[in-house]
């Protein structure tokens, strides 16, 4: 035990002699203390991944609640106020609790292994970045049990509606503070790790693209999260301390909140999307048995997207009544984003071109991502056009659009990544047949839920309403049935993962023929608890 404790008292990764003897058996504390005290990037990665799955389930249950109410016109299941609480919390939990942490989980597991580093740069900070999250999630869920319930204001938390809410609003604000803190600490860690801890010979332009996308994402997080913290803090002081940032009666402006929020909110879209792009850029070459096409242009395109994402925020606000020059500026800037995004899609397709393709589950999810994320990108282009957006703004068309980006984009990328790296992480293969069934169910149900919502939005159904005219009934019914199916399909995913961990076939060091980053070429499967204590030299 003393040697274990001793191990934890030292920063990892300086190649202590004795580590080599212990190898995989040289482990952490046993039991729950292992997870609370761990500073190991693999353990923390695992924690992030399970945490995000739990949040994904909670947020998913809320979505099922929403779709139950929307199954038929009229009020059947819940009152409108609770409906608003569900839409708000579904959004916050999915964005901050599920999608962002899942990619931090990937970052923790993969970045050190992909750049040949022994661990993350700040191992204890890493532990804290994670353990902030459960507290934030608890605050969010607790808000439902406060007088007045959770805030029913939408995940965007627009002022001045927020001022009318009960104490649940304050819990949500504090939760956002804590989540932001966690993200910033995690990002600092990722940036430092990537810039300082690469193995000799691993130049920036040799890094796997997943590492590149995370480097860029981490900078976005560091720049954007404090802005969100500022916006919600101003809301807090407007609520309790007599300030009037967002109240015209005191010289403030409700629209100011929207500007601040979306200055965070648009980069946030890419914070969610870019790591997914990274995963896809690992998976497609692996199953095409061919190097990524246009590596350098991928790096530049990703950087361009990140930079432009800071000057397009007001395209979420075309209907607030901007001057015509403002509308035109934000429209042109938004349309420009289509160029680097197009470059990425073309590169992925060109990577597949004349490859030697196989279609295991990770590749299926990657293709699903490619196809439907592009669809979401195209509806984004439609929404970039001011006059059309004015017609579609705050309708179900927007709901469909961003779910194509966030679910078919980020979630599909996450599934692709999980199936891709699960053999490496656990040392066992998942059941290929079940994985493929999971893919097809998810694909079909996803499109059932969201494709028809384009129709709803065009026909005039506003978002965030619990009740609607019967002309919208058919699409809502299909959408709701899809949602129930989508929920059930994820139980299959949980079963696949648990079964893999418990009783999957042992996986070889490199189960994917075309995978060529360091974790496949230099490390056994599963990798020992500490890896790359002596850094490899990349030639």
């Amino acid at each position, binding site marked *: 035990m003393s040697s274990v404790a001793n191990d934890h008292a030292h920063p990892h990764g300086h190649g202590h002699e004795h580590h080599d003897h212990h190898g995989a058996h040289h482990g952490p504390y046993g039991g729950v203390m292992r997870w609370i005290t761990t500073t190991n990037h693999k353990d923390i990665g695992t924690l992030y991944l399970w945490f995000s799955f739990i949040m994904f389930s909670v947020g998913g249950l809320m979505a099922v609640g929403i779709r139950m109410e929307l199954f038929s016109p009229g009020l059947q299941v819940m009152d409108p106020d609770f409906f608003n609480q569900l839409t708000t919390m579904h959004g916050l939990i999915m964005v901050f609790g599920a999608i962002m942490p899942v990619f931090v989980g990937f970052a923790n597991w993969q970045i050190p292994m992909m750049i040949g580093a022994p661990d993350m740069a700040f191992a204890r900070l890493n532990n804290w970045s994670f353990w902030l999250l459960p507290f934030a999630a608890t605050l969010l869920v607790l808000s439902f049990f406060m007088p007045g*319930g959770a805030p029913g204001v939408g995940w965007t938390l627009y002022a001045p509606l927020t001022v009318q809410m009960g104490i649940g609003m304050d819990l949500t604000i504090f939760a956002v503070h804590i989540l932001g803190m966690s993200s910033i600490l995690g990002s600092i860690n990722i940036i430092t790790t990537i810039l300082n801890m690469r193995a000799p010979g691993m130049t920036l332009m040799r890094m796997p693209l997943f590492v590149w996308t995370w480097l860029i994402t981490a900078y976005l997080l560091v720049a954007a999260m404090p802005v969100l913290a500022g916006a919600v803090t101003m809301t807090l002081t407007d609520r309790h301390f007599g300030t009037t940032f967002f109240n015209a009666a005191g010289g403030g*402006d409700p629209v100011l909140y929207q500007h601040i929020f979306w200055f965070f909110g648009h980069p946030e879209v890419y914070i969610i999307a870019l790591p997914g792009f990274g995963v896809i850029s690992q998976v497609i070459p692996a199953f095409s048995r061919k190097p990524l096409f246009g590596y350098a242009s991928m790096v530049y395109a990703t950087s361009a997207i990140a930079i432009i994402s800071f000057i397009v925020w007001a395209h979420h606000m075309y209907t607030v009544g901007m001057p*015509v020059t403002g509308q035109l500026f934000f429209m042109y800037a938004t349309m420009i984003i289509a*160029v680097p995004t197009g470059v990425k899609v073309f590169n992925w397709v*060109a990577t597949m*071109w004349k490859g030697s393709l196989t279609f295991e589950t990770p590749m299926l999810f990657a293709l699903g991502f490619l196809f439907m994320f592009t669809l979401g990108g*195209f509806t984004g282009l439609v929404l970039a*056009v*001011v006059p059309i957006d*004015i017609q579609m703004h705050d309708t179900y068309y927007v709901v469909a659009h961003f779910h194509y980006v966030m679910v078919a984009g980020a979630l599909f990328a996450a599934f692709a990544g999980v199936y891709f790296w699960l053999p490496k992480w656990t040392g066992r293969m998942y059941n290929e047949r079940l994985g493929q069934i999971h893919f097809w169910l998810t694909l079909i149900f996803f499109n059932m839920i969201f494709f028809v919502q384009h129709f709803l939005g065009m026909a005039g159904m506003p978002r965030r309403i619990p009740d609607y005219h019967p002309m919208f009934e058919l699409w809502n019914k299909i959408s709701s049935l899809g949602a129930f199916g989508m929920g059930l399909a994820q139980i299959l995913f949980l079963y696949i993962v648990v079964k893999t961990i418990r009783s999957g076939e042992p996986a070889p060091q490199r189960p994917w023929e075309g995978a060529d980053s360091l974790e496949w070429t230099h490390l056994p499967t599963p990798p020992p608890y500490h890896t790359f204590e002596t850094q490899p030299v990349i030639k």
Partner: protein
Amino acid sequence: MKGSKLVSLFVGLTAAAASGAAHAAAWYFQTPASKMAQDIDWLHQVLMWIILVIFVGVFGFMFYACYAHRKSIGHKAEQFHENTTVEILWTVIPALILIVIAWPVTKVVIAQKDTSAPDLTIKVTGYQWKWGYDYLRGEGEGISFVSTLSTPREQIEGRAPKGEHYLLEVDNEMVVPIGKKVRIITTAADVIHAWWIPALGAKQDAIPGFLRDIWFRAEQTGTFRGQCTELCGKEHGYMPIVVRVVSGEDYAKWVGEQKKAMAAAADDPGKTWELRELVARGERIYAANCVACHQAAGQGLAAMKAPALAGSKVVIGAEQGPIDTVLNGRPNTAMQAFDKQLSDTDIAAVITYTRNSWGNKASDVQPAEVKARRK
């Protein structure tokens, strides 16, 4: 096989759902009733064709590769990974396409923002959860009314069959003449709302403390329906917008009727009302303004921080208590100031109603008492 059974069950359910829907499913823009809505429709169609072509092109390559470059048919991977010419082309060509799209769009944007020289100016005020209309300038100047959802609660709660315009019908429709440029000035009393008529291609947020404007020119008569599109609290789904476009003559007639009705509705401020009259009038006011939060039996709603009125000490206490609350509202709650929305008589009536319903018993409140408490 289990899977196929599940699939057929699902298809069956979906088909049942489809046939169960009473109304034809709407899936595209409503028929445009203004040039602006037409332009939006046209832009959307052009854009969809461009997108379709690109989509088929790109994914044609992808699916062809999936088919022809499979390992299972023995395709060997080539190892190329860059091609400068191709990469420049697929950067420049999309940029050019975007410029081609941006040109006509810019013209529409500029036209859409041009609210100058209107024939008629109407101020629209969003309240939680109804719309106020004030005809500010042009024919009908001075007309002013509040427009509230007229769908009965029984339909919403499933105790009565849903009507033809379920949730898209109001007590007082906004009426405008055909072919005239109507400028809409939006604002709000409490939180942000958004005024939207899809068929006219007009949507504008209504922001408390600020004025914003848009315009439309209706090109056909008829009744056009929309809904609030900015989440504004509990009853956000229940504040529709209805615009009735009529001919010039019909509009003049409507203006005349409105003016007469407004004159007739102006109550004699000195009149002393019977308790019974006030309660009857108050019940209507309550149903239109208060029931969403304070509920039909006056039991209140914790989620909205709306206290029970039945048995409330404030309601049945000294008269200035409820009068001040209704006139000035309660800060930071959905209880808004009704001083500008309701007349002295209406406020007296609704307070008298709450003081004499659900087991409450207290003296009536007369309009003169309300007037005396106005600031």
